[in-house]
């Protein structure tokens, strides 16, 4: 076998950084001094040169997965992060981002001190203040607004990104009493999680360790935020125990590891699944016993699929996948059932049909009987822990969530879930459609400027808000629009709430503080402790003024006792996280100690856990694993697979997955369909200023078909302008045959506009500057792949 080995050739187009001297970051390189980027940093530290060494088990926060890591601390400096082999979820791995977590801690650009805005919004001019000054400023503004709005608590929006302390921040939102909560759901997993939820009763996990046949469609598991639960499959493809069929418009790294790759037209996966279902129903390949026992409305669904004529021949021109391949896949899948998986996916919504697609996938999977069983989709076990203390006072004057209603329901989407619809909310706010005025927002670890389509509109929204408070670790594009900036410490500087991880091998895991917080940063628990100390009582005074129910109550009750019992927000944050965690796991003997010592706990861990080889460990013996927890029973309230959702039909949503002509893929001549995605070396905008990751991939490139690029005179590295009705971005070109002639693709998270980010500032192209704000009709998710763009060499 011939192997080409010129790494320098392969690495062409990457930029070498000049680096020298120093070890830790300089304390004088403050946020405000970022005009002249200080690029001469010695980034890495050789391990083993210090006197004092400490190893601390922690959990990674470079993405959502929370892999277990062991931090090596030498003379107080974190020099290395290694995988912690004891955690069944992450199984002794740490991806490139996990390894680069050290740089999140020592990023010279990180937020160091509380700040108050001095310049225009977006300009990034701030003055350093004390924590007390920041809290006083927030209190003054908040009280003024709430007084003017007569204690309508919903005048404030609360939003948060995903993370272990998101719940801590959410308790603040609940105690504050607003109805406006927006989190990452509607720009992330909302439609897939909900569709599996209403169909199977839960969003299941995939037993990729034992599956024999896997359809990996629209899921780029080798690249997109490398997820520990999907690594097993890459050890078994290519004739090594499992066959993986990759369905993706692009030839991804996942396609390279698959046994078969089929290039599908973007947004037409629903037609593909409907055709697979047709074959299975028509040829009666499904698991009849399972269907008999666990399906609701099977006959209705069967006749719906058959009578609509969703044949492979029908699907061929829609999907661009040949009919004979659809037949082949349907038959092979069912031949391997129940050890066959149509991977549910864990990505944001791409097309307007996404909810229906996920429903169709869930039902197709269920037809195989591969539910709650080894080698199929599994619900798994879970270790119970106690929740955290929260406070939910009733504010009579607080109005309900800011949504636009119609006679049939909501104007923007059929269902408004807990996390809300970010796009619909923002657009209603800008268009003055809110039922009352929203004037301020608290934003935790969230970057709306870069995380959702149509950056211009988000900037407008942030400008319109009278008070924007950002709690974050980095001076993101959103932080640039903040009135008050509160610096949170990074994940390596704090203990977070202990978390339970369900699955075939359930466990508890805890993020332990590795080093003390740098500068004046604090964990969010302590930030809220300080903030509520200032804010809680004055807000209660506003309530007293306007809330007649409270006034009535106070006629009979002692004010101090009443306040303390119902309205005192400070009490939620009076304990340190370590204390709260010990309490949360007190029902499990030895858990608190194990979580501190190993970072991981599960019952009988001391008996079960053992190293099998240098690379492999046993967490649970095979017979103790939670492959099946209900003998195949779906976890819906009815205990059945729900084929037909009557309550959805009443909201104008198809009760059964149905193909609509509007879902068809088409691109006007001369334009391109824009696709976005994730990468193994970057998570989201939050990792775009990480110097070590930047070193692996200095900027993002737009994939454009090689032949098309040639026609247009675009060569590798040429700058092109990508434009849509939303806006423009400039990015370098990567001509390749891995993409279709009428499509383009680039990685999300680049092209930051915050000049306080040395490496991310104006580096590469920003997808959300271009993606149009298309709201998915069921949950109001942002549909990310519905935008056509023009490309011009600049």
């Amino acid at each position: 076998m011939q192997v080409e080995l010129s790494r320098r050739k392969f690495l062409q187009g990457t930029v070498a950084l000049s680096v020298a001297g120093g070890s830790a970051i300089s304390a004088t390189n403050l946020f405000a001094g970022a005009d002249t980027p200080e690029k001469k940093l010695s980034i890495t530290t050789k391990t083993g040169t210090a006197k004092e060494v400490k190893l601390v088990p922690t959990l990674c926060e470079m993405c959502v997965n929370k892999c277990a890591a062991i931090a090596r601390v030498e003379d107080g400096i974190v020099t290395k992060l290694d995988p912690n082999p004891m955690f069944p979820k992450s199984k002794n791995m740490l991806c490139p981002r996990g390894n680069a977590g050290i740089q999140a801690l020592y990023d010279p650009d990180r937020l160091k001190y509380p700040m108050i805005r001095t310049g225009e919004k977006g300009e990034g001019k701030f003055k350093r203040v004390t924590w007390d000054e920041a809290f006083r400023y927030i209190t003054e503004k908040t009280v003024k607004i709430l007084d003017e709005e007569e204690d309508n608590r919903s005048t404030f929006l609360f939003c948060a990104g995903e993370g272990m302390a998101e719940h801590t921040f959410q308790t603040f939102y609940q105690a504050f009493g607003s109805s406006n909560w927006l989190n990452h759901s509607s720009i992330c997993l909302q439609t897939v999680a909900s569709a599996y939820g209403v169909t199977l009763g839960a969003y299941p996990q995939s037993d990729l360790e034992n599956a024999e046949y896997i359809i990996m469609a629209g899921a780029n598991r080798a690249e997109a935020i490398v997820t520990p639960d999907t690594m097993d499959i890459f050890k078994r493809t290519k004739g090594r125990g499992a066959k993986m069929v990759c369905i993706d418009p692009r030839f991804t790294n996942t396609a390279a590891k698959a046994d078969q790759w089929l290039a599908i037209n973007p947004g037409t996966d629903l037609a593909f699944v409907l055709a697979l279902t047709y074959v299975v129903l028509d040829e009666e390949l499904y698991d009849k016993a399972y269907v008999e026992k666990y399906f609701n409305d099977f006959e209705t669904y069967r006749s719906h699929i058959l009578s609509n004529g969703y044949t492979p021949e029908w699907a061929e021109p829609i999907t661009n996948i040949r009919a004979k391949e659809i037949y082949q896949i349907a038959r092979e899948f069912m031949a391997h059932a129940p050890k066959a998986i149509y991977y549910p996916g864990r990505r944001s919504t791409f097309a307007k049909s996404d909810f229906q697609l996920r429903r169709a996938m869930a039902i197709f999977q269920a037809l195989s009987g591969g539910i709650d069983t080894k080698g199929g989709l599994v619900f798994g076990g879970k270790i119970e822990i106690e929740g955290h203390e929260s406070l939910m006072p009733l504010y009579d004057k607080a109005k309900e969530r800011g949504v636009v209603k119609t006679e049939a329901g909501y104007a923007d989407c059929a269902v408004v879930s807990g996390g809300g619809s970010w796009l619909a909310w923002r657009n209603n706010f800008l268009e003055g459609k809110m039922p009352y005025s929203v004037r301020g927002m608290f934003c935790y670890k969230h970057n709306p400027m870069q995380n959702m389509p149509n950056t211009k509109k988000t900037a407008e929204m942030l400008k319109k808000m009278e008070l924007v408070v950002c709690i974050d670790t980095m001076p993101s594009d959103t932080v640039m629009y903040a009135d008050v900036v509160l610096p949170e410490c990074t994940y390596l500087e704090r203990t977070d709430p202990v978390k339970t991880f369900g699955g075939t091998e359930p466990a508890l895991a805890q993020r332990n503080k590795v080093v003390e917080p740098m500068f004046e940063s604090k964990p969010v628990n302590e930030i809220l402790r300080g903030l509520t100390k200032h804010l809680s009582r004055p807000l209660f005074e506003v309530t007293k003024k306007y809330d007649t129910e409270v006034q009535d109550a106070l006629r009979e009750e002692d004010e101090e006792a009443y306040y303390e019992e119902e309205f005192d927000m400070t009490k939620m944050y009076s304990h340190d996280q370590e204390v709260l965690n010990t309490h949360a796991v007190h029902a499990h003997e030895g858990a608190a100690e194990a979580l501190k010592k190993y970072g991981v706990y599960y019952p009988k861990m001391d008996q079960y856990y053992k190293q099998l080889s240098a690379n492999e460990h046993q967490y649970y013996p095979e017979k103790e694993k939670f492959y099946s927890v209900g003998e195949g029973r779906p976890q819906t309230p009815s205990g059945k697979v729900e084929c037909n959702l009557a309550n959805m039909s009443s909201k104008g949503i198809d009760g059964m997955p149905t193909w609509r002509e509007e879902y068809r893929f088409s691109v006007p001549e001369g334009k391109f369909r824009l696709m976005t995605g994730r990468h193994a070396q970057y998570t989201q905008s939050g990792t775009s200023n990480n110097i070590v990751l930047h070193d692996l991939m200095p900027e993002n490139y737009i994939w454009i078909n090689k032949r098309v690029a040639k026609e247009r005179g675009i060569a590798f590295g040429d700058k092109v302008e990508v434009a849509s009705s939303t806006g423009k971005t400039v990015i370098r070109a990567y001509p390749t045959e891995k993409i279709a002639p009428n499509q383009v693709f680039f990685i999300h998270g680049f092209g930051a506009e915050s000049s306080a980010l040395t490496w991310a500032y104006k580096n590469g192209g920003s997808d959300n500057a271009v993606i149009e704000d298309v709201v998915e009709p069921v949950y109001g998710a942002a549909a990310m792949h519905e935008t056509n763009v023009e490309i011009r060499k600049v």
Partner: protein
Amino acid sequence: MARYGMALDYKNCINCKACEVACKEENGILMGADKHRIWVGVKEIKGEYPLLDIVSSSFEPSQCQHCESAPCQEVCPTNATYYDENGVVRVDPDKCILCSYCMNACPYDARYVDDRTMTVDKCNFCSDTRLARGETTTACQATCPTKVRTFGDLDDPESEISILLRTREHFSLKSHLGTKPKLFYLT
């Protein structure tokens, strides 16, 4: 005394580059694309969309081969490149004069210049970091999400690597050059 080698289950590699970062963080390697001790080679895919040759796009994780008959050691005029007691090909920065003969001699392109010391650097199986404090895996092996690598003593018949090489088919890179590499690619 050992004879260290590494087996690579290279079909597992998804080109995530966790190994590259782990190596840089462990060994204090400089930033810069041309400063890698370790890398993943990628080949341009063959064909025209959508008719692409799926096997033409493979990932080749690689690093210094720690040849038993290393061309870089042969050409070094100052004996800066040497075999240590474990058969690991090492560089003594005090002796290196940056003549770069070794860089030209290496058929695997495994060497680069460290701009701080102005000497040639390369993979040393974490000999002066992890192995020096008694650990038994290299940084690249430990971190790998798909567990491509197995590091160990080729002289110990009971070591995991020896068992792997006895039981699995494998090949070496550019074996026709007679360099006797100690990196083995499992098929």
